[in-house]
């Protein structure tokens, strides 16, 4: 088989310029790599000695245990041959679909690349015998792969004197001696059992989604069926469903398959907050790229793409590195060393692909208030497993435990202010909502503080502590902006009451006063903590405006719905060859939205009129605040994982079951959308429709109900 494959020998010409006359150079016999030593590497895994051990696998087979894997576009191995020698032939066994570069250098600094083409129409590992003309080098580099399939090489031999019979210099393995290696994961007995039952070792997103759909439908059945005498049984069943849903948020222990911690989120929020003074909103990726470069990963950065956070566009890593040289001047020597340590911690805990993707995201965007709190926590120590967490348990680190605690506190707050039934419905929604599933922000760092503050705010207003409630809602607004919507109906109520009865509603006024005091304290405090004064808020405003004009595939809301067209979805317009493959999609979504601006304006105005009518018919500031959630998806499009803001819509005490059923029906519909659409932008467009309809329905329900007695208004 090997002999047949060698008939595919490729002749490649034109390589490195020889430093002298090749005929005058010594010509060692045998495989030149046998006497060479490894002098550099990047992004390869599995022992590099496998490359020159004289062992190949059967043609077309792939034994991962026998291959060196090249894990990025920049991955390579570099050999020092000890002296400048002519290389006249190379034997390479590598993935058939992979194009790989053989590079020659006389000094180890400048390289002449030499492309080895894939084997068309073939699969698995294929052996190629290459005749090399004019290839003289002391250093030889193999790598920087491209193409399809696994990026693997099982054998490389270089010859000055090519062997007369290529099959005499290799030994063919008949079977993989260690089939467990290279598969990535070894399975525990529980995983094996799950594999036998379902065909996958992990609980997949689809499986989890179906389970959550069933939980939602069960909860709706429990809420709608049975008379008053079954009330206790219904409560028990609802509690059981809520418990299963809470665990469902964590995909019943599968987390991020299998890690609990969301490293991508942690990198942005931990590093972004800790070094905000130096990085601001626009330098996270370029300084991280420089840190990578200083750790010997220059080539990886140069061959990759990085998002330029000052323009929100993807650019080549090389151009970012040029600009990043200023980063070191922004840090003290100690802080730069700390920054490099923290960056390397997250880089080392992430796959190479994932790390490169991290540097193409949208940067660090929280407000200075969040930065004040997050920065204080991140500065507790260097990034470490003990501080952050690791493995498949939520109890392995301090910071990753904060969000589960906040979620529990949110539910406890609902119990305190709105009762058990409301808390159970909220738990089912939070656990089953596929738009805010664990994969997005689960296992992250202080990502649920806005939800806790929002729910605490409306709960405090409900429990007749409006000033504190206003302060809590103000905190939520200052960290995520959109909770400002909760003040809108309160302000509307106050204005309507002032017009109708010539007096100010006391509760509403106290909510707004509490909020004003919180803003007066938190804004200056965060400006001081940021180290940049009020410029931090100016930068935050500019950065938020920049993000708002950048369409993303996972936005949910009326603007996302109106800007969607099947003909401009990502699958159709994505251009993988461009530096920014999504640029065309982004432009098209912007154009689509511009074309329907008048329609959008009409819809928003109509909604706000209905909203004002609903606000005038709600009882007091508490119910008014709860209604605020409905305005969020109409006037904005937020990342899907913020849709937890819908929780307050199910909390009003009157019409509780009706709204709960509406929320759970919407959640079930979202699960169906999740199961039906594989593309993120299509899924979010349909999800936007569901969320907009639900929000409009709740407002319509409030607007069309009987007007409460005048004495009750503002009570």
């Amino acid at each position: 088989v090997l002999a047949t494959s060698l008939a595919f020998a490729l002749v490649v010409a034109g390589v490195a310029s020889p430093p002298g006359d090749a005929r005058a150079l010594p010509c060692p016999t045998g495989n030149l790599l046998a006497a060479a030593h490894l002098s550099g590497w990047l992004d390869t895994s599995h022992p590099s000695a496998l490359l020159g051990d004289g062992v190949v696998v059967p043609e077309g087979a792939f034994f991962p245990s026998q291959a060196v894997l090249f894990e990025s576009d920049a991955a390579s191995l570099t050999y020092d041959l000890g002296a400048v020698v002519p290389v006249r032939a190379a034997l390479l066994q590598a993935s058939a679909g992979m194009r790989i570069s053989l590079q020659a250098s006389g000094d180890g600094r400048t390289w002449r690349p030499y492309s080895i083409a894939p084997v068309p129409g073939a699969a698995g590992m294929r052996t190629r015998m290459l005749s090399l003309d004019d290839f003289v080098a002391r250093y030889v580099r193999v790598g920087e792969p491209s193409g399809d399939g696994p990026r693997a090489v099982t054998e490389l031999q270089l010859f000055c004197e090519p062997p007369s019979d290529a099959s005499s210099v290799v030994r063919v393995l008949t079977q993989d001696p260690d089939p467990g290696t290279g598969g990535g994961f070894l399975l525990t007995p529980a995983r094996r059992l799950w594999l036998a039952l379902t065909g996958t070792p992990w609980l997949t997103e689809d499986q989890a989604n179906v389970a959550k759909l069933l939980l939602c439908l069960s909860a709706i059945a429990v809420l709608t069926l049975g008379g008053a005498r079954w009330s206790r049984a219904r409560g028990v069943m609802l509690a059981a469903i809520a418990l299963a849903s809470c665990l469902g948020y964590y995909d019943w222990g599968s987390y991020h398959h299998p890690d609990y911690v969301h490293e991508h989120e942690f990198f942005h929020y931990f590093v972004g907050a800790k070094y905000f003074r130096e990085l601001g909103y626009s330098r996270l990726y370029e300084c991280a790229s420089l840190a990578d470069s200083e750790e010997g990963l220059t080539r990886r950065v140069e061959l990759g793409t990085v998002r330029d956070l000052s323009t929100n566009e993807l650019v080549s890593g090389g151009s970012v590195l040029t600009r990043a040289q200023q980063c070191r001047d922004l840090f003290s020597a100690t802080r730069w060393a700390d920054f490099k340590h923290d960056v390397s911690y997250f880089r080392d805990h992430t796959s190479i692909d994932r790390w490169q993707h991290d540097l193409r995201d949208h940067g660090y965007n929280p407000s200075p208030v969040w930065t004040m709190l997050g920065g204080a926590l991140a500065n507790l120590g260097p990034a470490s497993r003990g501080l952050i967490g690791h493995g498949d348990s939520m109890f392995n680190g301090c910071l990753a435990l904060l969000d589960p605690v906040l979620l529990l506190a949110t539910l406890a707050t609902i119990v305190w202010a709105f009762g058990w039934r409301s808390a159970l419905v909220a738990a089912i929604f939070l656990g089953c909502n596929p738009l805010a599933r664990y994969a997005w922000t689960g296992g992250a760092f202080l990502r649920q503080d806005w939800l806790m503050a929002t729910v605490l705010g409306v709960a405090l207003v409900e429990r007749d502590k409006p000033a504190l409630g206003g302060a809590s809602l103000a905190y939520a607004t200052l960290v995520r902006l959109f909770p400002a919507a909760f003040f809108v109906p309160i302000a509307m109520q106050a204005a309507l009451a002032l017009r109708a009865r010539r007096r100010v509603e006391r509760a509403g006024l106290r909510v707004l006063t509490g909020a004003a005091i919180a803003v007066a304290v938190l804004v200056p405090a965060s400006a001081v903590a940021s180290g940049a004064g009020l410029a931090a808020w100016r930068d935050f405003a500019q950065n938020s405006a920049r993000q708002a004009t950048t369409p993303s595939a996972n936005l949910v809301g009326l603007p996302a719905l109106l800007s969607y067209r099947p003909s401009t979805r990502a699958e159709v317009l994505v251009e993988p060859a461009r530096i920014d493959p999504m640029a065309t999609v982004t432009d098209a979504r912007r154009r689509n939205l511009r074309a329907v601006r008048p329609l959008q304006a009409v819809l928003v105005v109509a909604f706000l009129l209905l909203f004002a009518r609903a606000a005038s018919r709600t009882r007091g500031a508490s119910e008014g605040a709860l209604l605020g959630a409905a305005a969020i998806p109409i006037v904005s499009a937020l990342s899907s994982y913020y849709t937890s803001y819908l929780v307050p819509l199910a909390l009003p005490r009157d019409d509780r079951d009706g709204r709960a059923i509406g929320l759970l029906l919407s959640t079930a519909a979202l699960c169906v959308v999740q199961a039906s659409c594989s593309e993120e932008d299509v899924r979010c467009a349909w999800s936007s429709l569901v969320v907009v309809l639900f929000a409009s329905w709740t407002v319509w329900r409030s607007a069309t109900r009987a007007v409460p007695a005048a004495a009750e208004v503002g009570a």
Partner: protein
Amino acid sequence: MTPPARLSCGVSVAAAILFLAACRSSDGRVAADLAADDRWTAVQAALEVRRGLSRELGSQARARAPSEGVTLALQDLDDARLRTSGMPMSRDDLADPSKASAWQKAQSTLAHARRALARAAEATELEGQLDVADREFAAAVARYTAAATAYDDLLRTAGLDANPLTGRRFLPRVAFATPAGD
């Protein structure tokens, strides 16, 4: 209790004991793996100190009046730094004997080049600091080697081959035979 019930109980107890024993064994390897990671972090911190001193030494040498000895030593140092920068050690690389050996050799070459430049540039004070940094680096490598050896010993004796925390195969660690940097 009927015989089948007794048998079931016995099997259950034995399974529980085996499970607990396996967990204890795995926990030992996880702890040893984490301990070695911590030691490796200390090695990287020591490397960072040496890098800082290298930069300082390079700046001082370039600021001096040029001489052939200093110029050659600077060139050697730049070459050695170039070599080490092409050898990023990831967790996977710590399991690769070829890479570990090449890395150790490159660090040693770099230390020699640094000392030669310090002598040629007559940077006496920095030379002293470099000596301390080299000794601390060597000590950090020795501590890592001890932790890696303890971890590898556990791998050899434990029966399981998957990390219960991650499901991934435990990777062996190459022990550095002698302290690097001399």
